[in-house]
């Protein structure tokens, strides 16, 4: 186990609220790459919402850092924040709050490679500390390309911008965005270089999926309800399906002109669905679904339980690589009745617009399906089917626990029309909630069994709006709670698991890459993967 225990909280007898409340501590949030898309769409609206909710400390400010500002950098940053909030915030902007929020936004222009820029950043941070009574505490959010992580963390350390991990008031924490590397070797290199500047207890590897309410509710569902845990094993569960389906492709088009408006091809080409989704989000969700009960809610205790799942994943051998993993790429098709181009077309279009030499072809997968096994006592023999893809018919993510069928007696005698098995489905998006499919008798003199669904929907039942995942996660970093963040050993264990697949694909580049029409649920090969086991993908 890596030592990632955060330092003890600052003792303040006035800390209001119940004992279990972790309060965010005064600090400056420094956003690297603050001119970028993530900052605009997610981070600044998240911080604004936290501010308007009265959750952020009064001693708090945001300093943007990077290139891309125009004119007066601070005015530009404030205007940029405002437009992001207006467009993406879950709550509309309030003029009084907006003005007060803008007061604590600052910007330092500079390149991540330029030592002078870090000196300017340091001077700005000290000035902001004095203005807002901040005790020198920093949260660095690295919303930057992976290649820039090393120069950024090295420069932070070299310029005296990283405090000791034991420091309580003037703490330093760093948030590292995915992808952490593009394979095991590069992930280890990223982790090493971050570790040169920051202790593990100061490092927060973010996976926004883990901030979603339903994902957090997984542990509550399992360990706060006595009916599930006794059934949560190979004796009662037939299989588990984890699906992350997206209708979006890698390029956004203006519906009127059909001109591209935004593209992720630059990031995605050569990365693919396995690295983008499976290695991080899906394996993390798999861990929460399959882990043993932790003995406490301590951050490292939970993270140890998750790591144990990754360690028990059955490695892919040659046979499994051929029969348990399917990759594919979308070709042209239709989404919501609108024709959409193939992935290959999007790559060619992107490359030609950016004067990049156009390759002969692309073998980047936009769809992955796989069958994995967890070789431990609880899950022996239970397949976990994972599938994720772009340009599927709809945006939907869920974890479905399918229980074993009842014996073929009593109500399940007719083998031509077997009873639908009980399924517990946990929806992560778009409507967070869960449902339980049960068999029920239809009213009437005859015994007719029909499946019924008991539904629980977060937004309908609890009312109001759930905070965005980034809100929760930023708050956790400010409070020093790493529970929902990936530890170094878990990131590397996840890479270790997917490496045989990546290597296999790498060595068979010229071989057949299945295709699927945009707007369908993936290639036939994916259907065969599960149907060969006598099962089928759940319709979503």
């Amino acid at each position: 186990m890596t030592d990632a225990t955060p330092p003890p909280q600052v003792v303040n007898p006035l800390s209001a609220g119940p004992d279990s409340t972790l309060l965010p501590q005064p600090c400056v949030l420094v956003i690297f790459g603050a001119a970028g898309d993530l900052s605009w769409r997610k981070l600044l609206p998240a911080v604004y919402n936290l501010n308007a909710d009265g959750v952020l400390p009064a001693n708090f400010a945001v300093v943007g850092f990077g290139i891309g500002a125009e004119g007066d950098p601070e005015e530009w940053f404030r205007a940029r924040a405002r437009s992001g909030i207006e467009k993406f915030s879950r709550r509309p902007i309030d003029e009084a709050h907006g003005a007060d929020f803008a007061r604590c936004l600052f910007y330092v222009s500079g390149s991540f490679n330029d030592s002078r820029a870090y000196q300017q950043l340091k001077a700005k941070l000290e000035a902001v500390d004095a203005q807002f009574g901040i005790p020198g505490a920093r949260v660095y959010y690295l919303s930057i390309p992976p290649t820039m992580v090393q120069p950024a963390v090295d420069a932070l350390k070299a310029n005296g911008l990283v405090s000791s991990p034991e420091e309580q008031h003037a703490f330093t924490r760093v948030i590292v965005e995915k992808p952490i590397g593009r394979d095991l070797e590069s992930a280890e290199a990223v982790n090493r270089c971050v570790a040169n500047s920051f202790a593990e207890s100061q490092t927060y590897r973010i996976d926004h999926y883990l901030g979603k309410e339903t994902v957090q509710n997984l542990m509550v569902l399992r360990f706060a309800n006595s009916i599930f845990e006794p059934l949560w094993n190979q004796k009662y569960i037939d299989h588990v399906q984890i699906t992350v389906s997206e209708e979006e492709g890698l390029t956004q088009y203006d519906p009127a002109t059909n001109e591209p408006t935004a593209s992720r091809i630059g990031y995605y080409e050569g990365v693919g669905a396995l690295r983008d989704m499976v290695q991080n989000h899906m394996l993390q969700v798999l861990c929460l679904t399959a882990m043993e009960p932790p003995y406490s809610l301590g951050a490292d205790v939970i993270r140890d339980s998750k790591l144990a799942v990754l360690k028990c994943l059955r490695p892919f051998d040659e046979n499994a690589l051929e029969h348990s993993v399917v990759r594919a790429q979308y070709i042209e098709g239709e989404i919501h009745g609108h024709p959409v181009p193939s992935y290959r077309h999007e790559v060619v279009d992107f490359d030609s617009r950016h004067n990049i030499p156009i390759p002969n072809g692309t073998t980047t997968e936009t769809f992955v399906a796989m069958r994995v096994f967890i070789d431990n006592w609880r899950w022996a023999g239970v397949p976990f089917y994972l599938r994720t893809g772009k340009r599927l018919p709809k945006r939907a993510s869920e974890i479905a626990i399918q229980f074993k069928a009842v014996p073929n007696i009593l109500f399940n005698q007719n083998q031509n029309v077997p009873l639908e098995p009980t399924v517990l489905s946990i929806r992560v998006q778009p409507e967070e909630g869960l449902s339980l499919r049960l068999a029920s008798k239809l009213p009437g003199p005859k015994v007719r069994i029909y499946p019924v669904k008991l539904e629980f929907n977060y937004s309908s039942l609890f009312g109001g709006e759930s905070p965005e995942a980034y809100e929760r996660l930023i708050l956790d970093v400010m409070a020093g709670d790493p529970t929902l963040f990936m530890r170094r050993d878990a990131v590397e264990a996840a890479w270790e698991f997917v490496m045989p697949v990546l290597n296999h694909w790498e060595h068979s580049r010229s071989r057949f890459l299945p295709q699927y029409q945009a707007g369908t649920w993936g290639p036939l090969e994916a259907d065969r993967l599960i149907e060969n086991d006598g099962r089928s993908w759940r319709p979503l």
Partner: protein
Amino acid sequence: MIDATAPVDVPLSAVDRQLTEGLRELHDPTSAPMYRARMSNLVIYCDDESHLQEVEASIPQIVSVHPARVFLLVANDSSSSNDVRATVQVRRAGAGSRMAAEQVTLRGGPHGADHLPFAVRALLIGDLPTNVWWASRTPPPFAGPVLDDLCESAQQLIYDSLGWADPHRGMAATSAWLSRFEREGEGGRWRVASDLNWRRLKYWLRLISQELSPAVHPGALDTISEVLIEHGPHAVTQAWQIGAWLASRLDWKIQATKFKKGSEIGFQFERPEHGTVRLRLDRLEEGAAEIRRVKIACAACGELGSLDFTSTGDGRLAVQPEEAGAEPRTLSEPAQSLVEMVAKQLSDREPDNIFREMVKAAHVLVQASIH
């Protein structure tokens, strides 16, 4: 599509049937079926019919945040009979929602208060938590057996000390009542009491706590020499609660009390290590029922000075430090209507030890001020 059924008077024995009928009535045949959404039983006790009407207007907002089977109770009905009369209504938990919330109004007649808990008991949904909102202006310690009976199977009692006619008497009685009322334990028999007035202070306490924190102003907590709390004429309990909170959290021991000009009460405390602290509660002549200002004299960052906390009046609290060039530090104080606070309090059932300690300290302060 209708958002609520018309209220229907039914015998007590027919309430459940009528609720089911109401659900059917709400269902629009052209759209998906309606669901009952019930996170808890919410029993609301009102002083009289006009108070009931006032509270009833807030039900849609409460159930949109916390869907519940709502029981509205009033004892002093104008009818001559002491029998409990039931009126049933079903409404969507928000416009266009597929979730339906149920409301049962129970009127007890001039001497019917004693019958109300019996009527409610039969209609509670057994598997759900029961919350009692004591909307009455009578402080719970003086409510008598009707409150005890209503709370028999409740997990939470919500009350509001804001409207108490004699806040000193109410606060003096709360400590003993609270230790009798609250219970811990197994078998689902635990019970907590929550004062909405305490909830109102959440953002004040947060800002004071942050600014006095050793991280922000080292040494400030140990050097507090004077606290002035200015409050609107009807925010007496809030002021006492902040004072009692500081005293209980910082372990101040009361030494002396002095009165000054009727509107101000002054206390002197001894700090744990050494030194004394003066606490002044100043009731302003006019203004809303809220805290207006908290001024704390202390040695922040080694220099004697004060931290001046005020309400900016536009949804924020501010503190202006005395250091040169320092920006005011602000904290959003989201508007909290009574209804919103009730709705949020319903799912906030964690025992609050800080509240309990504050109530005990408030009791000591009130006793000291009386003797």
